[in-house]
């Protein structure tokens, strides 16, 4: 495919390859060269080979073909008359390489990269960053009396002095305290209770759970000790913490949490079909769970397994998985009731979460894409109780439009996940309860986290466009300075992912994308705004390996994403990716996180 005159400029030093058959005597111009951006693909598909000793486009330009040349022929000196000499190495231009940016992570004042600051008479410095896709930053000239006063460069070796006036006070919007109470033993009994570290579950709840929904055909309850995990299990639909509001509503006040025990929902239908979609993690529970991931049971957790059998053929309809979650919630809810009032019991741990607006810091937003395509691809937003079912709004019924939650609402169990995409990449209920990206952004004193936007991935293409455009309008109204977009899963939701990133990036907002791609989930769509990406894969071969939550966000991933966002917001270039998934890139990035 030929180059245009504009694209030619960018590729003068790339190898010269004929795009199409050209007859002898052709004087080579832009239209005769193949586009170098797809060389790696062409080489991978064995459509082309690139040898040493080839000419660059600059050298071949204007030369004449001696013989007829076939498409995708690499041009070498023997094929052409009138080849230009290789130009002498051009001296390094004083670009961002020359900027006094530290090699190690550094702190810097004022974001803009060194670029000519054009004095303007409106009291603002106007900067244009060539490396930031047309991002224009406008900000007051630091209180200097003269407009166009020098701006401290990014990452200056000696940081520019902080402004004299004290930073504006942080505004705490709401505070949530999670009080942890230990569970050392779970047993079945006549009534549900919690005392002295023992959680007793009323056995008769199993019968009540069966009545939760007409589609529920059977429910089994089993306590699985950490030492006895080699137990066969149906596919794991969800992991649900036991947490109850003791004071206040979701996102504020006090939430009592049982630590050391967690509910695990598994299921199949009457015909023996696992309730899953892409990939299933039925098997031995010691092998099929990545213990310790935010969404998973921890190494020492007692698992309370609720295995639900639903009506034949309903596993891939919305009502089927929802019925299973409703059944499990009957049992979980009884445990919540038992821990609502623990006055006089001393928690082993208290964690305080604050929704803080930090004036004077760059405003950022976290956008989390969730599944919304029917069947088990649904999520309940803001249930009445942490991680509960009742009171939650289904994002499919909401039309998958963007909905804002406060960080505390997320961390207080504001999402009950029905999503049953590939086991390794799905974000389940416990994941949201301790979402590492939300926790890290919320406590980052350099940033002002405005909120967490949940946006569904609809089934229909025009709905995908609709929700992405609504996200763009929301971002514009929020006036944020940066955004991180995450998605669970891979495949067609990567279409939403790329459109969501474009909706943000095209508004001049620096954005970082976070997803599983690696080998199996390679992106098939993309755009120029997706130039700062974080890979969630943990599988050595780059696959959806059907180990629960293996390829979901960890605190390490969150740290890289946030560092990348700050770096991009500061105007420091993010290097382009390798053409293929390469674990070494991720390892190198990890080393840059302090």
């Amino acid at each position: 495919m030929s180059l245009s005159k504009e694209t030619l400029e960018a590729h003068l030093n790339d190898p010269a390859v004929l795009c199409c058959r050209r007859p002898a005597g052709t004087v080579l111009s832009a239209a005769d060269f193949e586009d170098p951006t797809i060389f790696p693909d062409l080489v991978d598909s064995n459509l082309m080979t690139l040898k040493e000793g080839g000419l660059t486009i600059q050298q071949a330009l204007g030369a004449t073909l001696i013989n007829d040349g076939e498409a995708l022929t690499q041009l070498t000196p023997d094929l052409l008359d009138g080849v230009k000499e290789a130009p002498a190495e051009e001296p390094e231009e004083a670009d961002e390489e020359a900027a006094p940016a530290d090699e190690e992570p550094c702190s810097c004042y004022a974001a803009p990269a060194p670029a000519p600051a054009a004095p303007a008479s409106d009291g603002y410095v106007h900067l244009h960053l060539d490396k930031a896709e047309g991002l224009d930053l406008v900000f007051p000239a630091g209180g200097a009396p003269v407009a166009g006063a020098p701006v401290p460069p990014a990452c200056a070796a000696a940081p520019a002095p902080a402004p004299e006036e004290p930073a504006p006070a942080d505004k705490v919007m709401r505070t949530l305290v999670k009080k942890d109470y230990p569970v050392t033993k779970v047993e079945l009994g006549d009534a549900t209770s919690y005392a002295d570290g023992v959680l007793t579950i009323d056995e008769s709840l199993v019968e009540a759970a069966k009545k939760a929904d007409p589609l529920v055909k059977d429910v089994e309850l089993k306590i699985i000790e950490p030492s006895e995990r080699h137990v066969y299990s149906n596919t794991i639909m969800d992991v649900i913490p036991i947490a109850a509001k003791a004071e206040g509503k979701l996102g504020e006040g006090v939430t009592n949490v049982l630590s050391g025990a967690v509910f695990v929902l598994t299921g199949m239908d009457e015909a023996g079909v696992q309730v899953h979609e892409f990939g299933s993690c039925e098997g031995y529970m010691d092998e099929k769970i990545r213990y310790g991931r935010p969404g998973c049971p921890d190494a020492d957790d007692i698992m309370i397994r609720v295995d639900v059998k639903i009506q034949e053929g309903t596993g891939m309809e919305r009502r089927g998985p929802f019925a299973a979650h409703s059944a499990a919630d009957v049992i979980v809810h009884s445990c919540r009731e038992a821990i609502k009032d623990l006055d006089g019991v001393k928690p082993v741990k208290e964690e305080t979460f604050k929704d803080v607006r930090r004036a004077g810091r760059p405003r950022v937003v976290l956008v989390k894409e969730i599944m919304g395509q029917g069947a088990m691809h649904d999520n309940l937003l803001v249930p009445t109780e942490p991680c509960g079912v009742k009171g939650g709004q289904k994002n499919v019924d909401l039309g998958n439009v963007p909905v804002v939650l406060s960080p505390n609402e997320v961390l207080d169990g504001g999402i009950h996940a029905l999503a049953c995409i590939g086991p390794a990449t799905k974000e389940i209920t416990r994941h949201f309860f301790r979402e590492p990206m939300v926790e890290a952004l919320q406590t980052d004193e350099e940033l002002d986290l405005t909120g967490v936007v949940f946006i569904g991935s609809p089934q229909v293409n025009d709905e995908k466009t609709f929700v992405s455009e609504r996200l763009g309008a929301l971002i514009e109204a929020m006036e944020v300075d940066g955004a991180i977009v995450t998605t669970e899963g891979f495949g067609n939701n990567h279409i939403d992912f790329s459109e969501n990133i474009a909706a943000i990036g095209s508004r001049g907002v620096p954005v970082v994308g976070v997803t599983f791609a690696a080998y199996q989930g390679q992106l098939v769509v993309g755009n120029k705004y997706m130039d700062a990406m974080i890979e969630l894969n943990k599988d050595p071969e780059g696959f959806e390996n059907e180990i629960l939550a293996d390829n979901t966000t960890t605190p390490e991933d969150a740290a890289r994403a946030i560092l990348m966002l700050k770096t991009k917001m500061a105007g420091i270039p993010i290097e382009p990716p390798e053409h293929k998934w390469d674990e070494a890139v991720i390892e190198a990035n990890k080393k840059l996180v302090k």
Partner: protein
Amino acid sequence: MPTAFKLTTAKGLKSEIYVPWTPKPVWTPLTKPLSECKVAFITSGGIHKKDQTPFNTAGDWSYREIPSDTPSDQLMVTHGGFDNSDINKDVNAMLPIDRLRELVKEGFIGSLVPTFFGFMGGGGNVDKFEHVTGPEIAKKLKAEGADIVLATGGCGTCHRSCTLVLRCCEAAGMSTCIIAALPPIARQQGAPRITAPLVPIGSNAGEPNNPTMQMGILKDTLNAMEEFDHFGQMKALPYEYRHNV
């Protein structure tokens, strides 16, 4: 941005995921069984009827209407972007018109539209293909009731021109697939669906005078269209033909 603030940054961070830059997705799901589908075929490989005006090989965004019942020996190629010898041996190597009629006879597909389209995508005026030729062909095929539009490119720029026209068809409500000799170009240009046999430019639909391969490529392509469930997917097909020109 606020006036002054502190950000921890790092130099040398590298994006971790390769992202192809593609145009906006266009997508029309295939909702009928193949046996009920009306199928169209278009090619940017410079095919036209012998009694039609040849294409201008320097660049041409016009198109030729080829009745789908045209005998294959009345078709020819005018294209300067690749070696024409395979098509001269058997036009089905670029426009598998005989094979498509056999597919109807077999009941594998429902029917063919009355009109196929040939154009010469080499050089390829992007603007004209995107805004004139593409919409015109899409409108005519839609009016003829096409459910599926299959296509071959020819050379590199032909794959681009072809993809531009297919995207117009997809946007007009037809499910499309390009049988690509140069899949990276089809993908970069935003083809909704791609199948990729290992064939050279100039025999994009399979080896000349090898009806078994040509049929296999068509059937596998149609079957793949039933599997593809979202924009931008590609399937490599197990056919290989090399042509040493």
